C-alpha cells in the first residue's frame, strides 16, 4: 500500500507538471486558434535559462524563478505572437503548423548552441532535503511545491476566465473575434496576452520538471510534449478535463513503473502519454466536410512527360559523370542526399499533392530498413521493405485518415514518438544497430560506393518521373481535387477516406523503400536515425524546398545531407540542422511554395516569354 501511495504521489507530481504545460497549450490554442508545437521547446529553454541564472550565474533561486516565469517567458511569448503568429491569423493549418514547428526546431538549435550537451547540468531540487511525512509517506518539499503550484494555477486560471473582465474578454475573442472587436476588445492584444500566459505556463512546467532529472535539450522538450496528450483529453478547450487527463497520464505512467515487468517499463512506459494522445485523437468526431473552405493554393504547373524524362536522363548522366570525380567522403554525402530526396518524394505525394500533414515519414523509412535488414536483402528484402511500411501505413491511415490538419499532425506525432520508444528501441536496441544489406542486382556491383551513388540517382529519377506521371493521371487529379475542395470532391462521388487511405499507404511504401536504401548506404541503422524530431526537420526542409515538386524534395534533401559537413566547419554551432532549418522556416515559411515552387514559377515565366517571342516572330514573318 505504501508503495502504491508513493508511486501515486510521484505520478501525481509528474501529472501536475503535464497539467501545467497542457493548460498553457489550451489557453493559447483557444484564444489564438494556433496550436503551439513549440510549447515543449519553450519549457526546455526556460528550464535551461533558470539553470543559467541560478546555478550558472549564482542568482538567488527565487529571483531566478520569478525572472524566468514572470518576465522572460511572457516577454518571449508576446514577441513570438507579434512577430511570428499575428501575420498568420486565418492562414491554413499547414502554415501555422510549419511556423510553430519551425520555432520548435529553432529553440532546439538554440538549446544545443547555448548549452552544449558535453557538460552535465543538474538543477538542485527546490527546498532540497526538506520532507514531511503524511500517513507514513515521505513527501519532499519539491513534490509539495509542484502540487501546490499546480492547484494554485488551475484555480487561478478558472477564476481568471470566469470572474475577471480580461478573462471573459479572452473567451469572447475565441467565440467571435469580430464581434469581440466591436465590443471594444482588441483581439490582437488578447491573443498576445494568451501567448504570454502560455509561454509562462510552459516555462513553469519546464522549470518544475528539470530538477527531477538531468537537463537534456531533447528529453526535456519531449517530456513537455507529453502534456499534449492531456490537452487532447480536454479537446484543446476544456481546462478541467485537461487537468484530469494530465493526472491520469502521470499516475498511470508511475504505476506502470512500479508494477509492470522490465520490458514494459523500458519500452512501453515512456510511450504511455503518446499512446494516450493517439487514443484521445481517435475519439474525436469526424470533421465535417465544409463548403467554402478553399485552401486557395496554386500548385506549380507539372512538366510534361517528355520533358521530365529528359531531365531525369540528364540527371542520371550528370550523376554518373560526377560520381567519378567525388572523393569517398563527398560521395557519401551525395548518396545521403539522393536517398533522402527519395524519402522526401513520399512527402511530396502525401503532403504536397494530398494535402495531409505527416510527422512520421521517418518512422516508415525505419520500418522499411528494418524489413530489409531482417529478411537479409535481395528481391524479397526489397519487397518486404515496401510491404511492411505500406501495411503499417494502411493501418495508421485506417485510424487517422478521417482526421485532417492539426489532429492528423498530432496523431502522426504520437505514432512516431511511440514507435521510437516501443519499436525501434526494442527491435534495434538502445544504441544498437541492425545490419542492412544493399539490394543485389545482376551485372551491377552495388557494394561499390560509386555504383551505389549512380543507382540511387537512377532510383530518384525514376521515382520523380513516376510521381509526375501519377500527378498527371486520374489519381493525381483526384488527389489535387480533394486537396483543393474536399466538399466538391465528395459531391462528385469521390470517397475522401478511401482516397486518403490509398495515398497514405502509397507514401508509406515510398518512404519504406527509401529507408531500406538509406540503411544499405550506411550498412546499418540505429534507433537514432528515425527520431520524431528528425521527421519534423524533414517535413520543414521539404516545405522550405517546396512540397509540390520533386525538385523541392531534392534541394531539401541535399541541404539535409550537407548539415554534417557544415557541422564540421562550425562545431560550436551545436546541432546545426535544427538551428538552420528552424531559422530558414521562420524566415521563408510564409512562402507556401518554397524554393522549388519559385523555380517552377520562374520556369513558367520563361515559357510564357518564349511563347510570346515565337508569337512576335511569327507575326513579323
Amino acid at each position, binding site marked *: 500500500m505504501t508503495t502504491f501511495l508513493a508511486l501515486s504521489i510521484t505520478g501525481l507530481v509528474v501529472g501536475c507538471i503535464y497539467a501545467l504545460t497542457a493548460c498553457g497549450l489550451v489557453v493559447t490554442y483557444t484564444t489564438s486558434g494556433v496550436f503551439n508545437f513549440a510549447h515543449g521547446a519553450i519549457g526546455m529553454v526556460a528550464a535551461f535559462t533558470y539553470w543559467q541564472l541560478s546555478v550558472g550565474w549564482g542568482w538567488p533561486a527565487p529571483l531566478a524563478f520569478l525572472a524566468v516565469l514572470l518576465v522572460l517567458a511572457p516577454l518571449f511569448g508576446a514577441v513570438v505572437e507579434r512577430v511570428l503568429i499575428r501575420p498568420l491569423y486565418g492562414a491554413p493549418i499547414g502554415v501555422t503548423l510549419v511556423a510553430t514547428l519551425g520555432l520548435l526546431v529553432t529553440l532546439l538549435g538554440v538549446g544545443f548552441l547555448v548549452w552544449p550537451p558535453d557538460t552535465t547540468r543538474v538543477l538542485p531540487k527546490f527546498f532540497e532535503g526538506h520532507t514531511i511525512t503524511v500517513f507514513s509517506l515521505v513527501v519532499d518539499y519539491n513534490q509539495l511545491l509542484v502540487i501546490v503550484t499546480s492547484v494554485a494555477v488551475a484555480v487561478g486560471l478558472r477564476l481568471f476566465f470566469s470572474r475577471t473582465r480580461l478573462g471573459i474578454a479572452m473567451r469572447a475573442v475565441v467565440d467571435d473575434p469580430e464581434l469581440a472587436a466591436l465590443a471594444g476588445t482588441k483581439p490582437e492584444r488578447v491573443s498576445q496576452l494568451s501567448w504570454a500566459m502560455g509561454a509562462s505556463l510552459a516555462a513553469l512546467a519546464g522549470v518544475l520538471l528539470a530538477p527531477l532529472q538531468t537537463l537534456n535539450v531533447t528529453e526535456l522538450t519531449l517530456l513537455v510534449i507529453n502534456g499534449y496528450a492531456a490537452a487532447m483529453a480536454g479537446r484543446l478547450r476544456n481546462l478541467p478535463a485537461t487537468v484530469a487527463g494530465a493526472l491520469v497520464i502521470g499516475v498511470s505512467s508511475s504505476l506502470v513503473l512500479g508494477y509492470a515487468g522490465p520490458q514494459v517499463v523500458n519500452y512501453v512506459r515512456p510511450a504511455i502519454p503518446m499512446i494516450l494522445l493517439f487514443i484521445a485523437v481517435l475519439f474525436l468526431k469526424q470533421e465535417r466536410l465544409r*463548403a467554402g473552405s478553399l485552401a486557395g493554393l496554386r500548385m506549380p504547373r507539372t512538366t510534361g512527360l517528355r520533358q521530365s524524362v529528359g531531365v531525369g536522363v540528364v540527371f542520371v548522366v550528370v550523376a554518373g559523370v560526377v560520381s567519378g570525380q567525388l572523393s569517398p567522403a563527398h560521395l557519401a554525402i551525395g548518396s545521403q542526399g539522393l536517398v533522402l530526396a527519395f524519402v522526401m518524394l513520399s512527402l511530396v505525394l502525401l503532403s504536397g499533392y494530398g494535402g495531409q500533414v505527416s510527422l512520421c515519414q521517418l518512422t516508415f523509412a525505419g520500418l522499411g530498413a528494418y524489413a530489409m535488414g531482417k529478411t537479409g536483402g535481395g528481391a524479397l528484402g526489397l519487397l518486404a521493405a515496401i510491404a511492411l511500411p505500406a501495411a503499417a501505413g494502411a493501418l495508421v491511415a485506417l485510424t487517422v485518415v478521417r482526421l485532417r490538419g492539426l489532429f492528423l499532425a498530432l496523431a502522426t506525432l504520437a505514432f512516431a514518438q511511440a514507435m521510437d520508444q516501443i519499436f525501434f528501441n526494442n527491435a534495434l536496441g538502445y544504441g544498437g544497430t541492425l545490419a542492412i544489406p544493399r539490394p543485389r542486382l545482376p551485372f551491377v556491383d552495388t557494394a561499390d560506393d560509386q555504383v551505389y551513388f549512380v543507382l540511387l540517382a537512377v532510383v530518384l529519377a525514376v521515382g520523380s518521373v513516376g510521381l509526375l506521371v501519377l500527378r498527371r493521371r486520374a489519381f493525381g487529379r483526384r488527389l489535387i481535387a480533394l486537396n483543393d475542395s474536399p466538399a466538391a470532391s465528395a459531391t462528385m462521388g469521390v470517397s475522401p477516406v478511401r482516397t486518403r487511405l490509398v495515398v497514405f499507404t502509397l507514401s508509406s511504401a515510398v518512404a519504406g523503400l527509401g529507408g531500406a536504401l538509406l540503411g544499405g548506404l550506411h550498412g546499418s541503422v540505429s534507433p537514432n536515425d528515425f527520431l520524431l524530431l528528425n521527421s519534423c526537420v524533414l517535413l520543414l526542409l521539404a516545405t522550405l524546398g517546396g512540397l509540390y515538386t520533386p525538385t523541392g524534395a531534392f534541394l531539401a534533401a541535399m541541404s539535409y545531407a550537407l548539415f554534417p559537413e557544415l557541422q564540421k566547419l562550425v562545431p560550436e554551432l551545436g546541432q546545426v540542422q535544427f538551428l538552420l532549418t528552424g531559422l530558414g522556416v521562420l524566415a521563408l515559411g510564409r512562402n507556401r511554395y518554397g524554393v522549388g515552387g519559385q523555380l517552377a514559377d520562374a520556369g513558367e515565366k520563361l515559357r510564357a516569354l518564349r511563347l510570346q517571342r515565337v508569337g512576335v516572330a511569327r507575326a513579323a514573318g
Partner: protein
Amino acid sequence: MLRVDDVEVRFGGVQALKGVSLEVPDAALVGLIGPNGAGKTTLFNVITGLEKPSRGRVLMADQDVTSLPPHQRARRGLGRTFQRIEVFSSLTVHENVLAAAEARRSWGKDEPEPARSASELLERVGLRDVEHERVDKLPTGLLRLVEVARALASRPRLLLLDEPGSGLSTHESEALGDLLVDLVRDGRSILLVEHDVELVMRVCQQIHVLDFGSIIATGTPDEVQRDPAVQAAYLGTSAA
C-alpha cells in the same frame, strides 16, 4: 426524384430550417427562391449530405438517403454547384471537368471516355475557348459555368444549382437558361437557387419560396409572383 421531408436544422440557438418539405419530380425544373439568409444553401447542404438535419428525411427515388455520406449520394445520381465557388484551383478548366468524369468512370458502368466527355461538356456550356486555362485565371461568372460542367460530368439525375447565373452577362444568362431547359428535356431534374428572378420565372415549372427557414409559398411562376406572402418577404410589407 427528390423528396425533402420535414427537415429541420439548428445552428446553436438559431433554427436555420424549420420543417421544410418539398418535392422535385422526375424531369422537372424546380426553382427555390428567397431572400438572403432564408436557408437555401443550408437546404442544399442537407440534401447533398454536407449538413446533418436535426430532424426530417431526404429521399432520392423513394429511397431514404439521410444517413448516407455526400459521395454515396453523388453515386446515386446527385450533383451540385456551390454558391461560394468550389473549383479545383490548381487544375485547368478541362482538368476540373475531367476529374469529375474520371471519378464517374471509377464507380459507374460503361462510361464514355472521360477526356472526350469533358471536352463535349465544356463545349456545351461555352467554355471550350478557355479549357486549357488554369481556373484561377478566370472571372467568377465563368467559374460558375465550370462548376455546372463539372457537376454534369458526374452525369447526375438530379442537379442542384446554387446561383449559377450570378456574375453572368445577360447574354450568358440567357444561354444558361436554354441549357437548363435542354438538360431537363434530356430527362434530368434540376433544383435551381437563383437571384436572377427573370431567369427563374422563365425556365422553372414550379417554384418554392423559402423565408426565415420555412417554405412560405409553392406554385407556378405566375402563382408565386401574385402571392401576397412572397411579395411581403421580398418587399418587406406586412403579409396580413
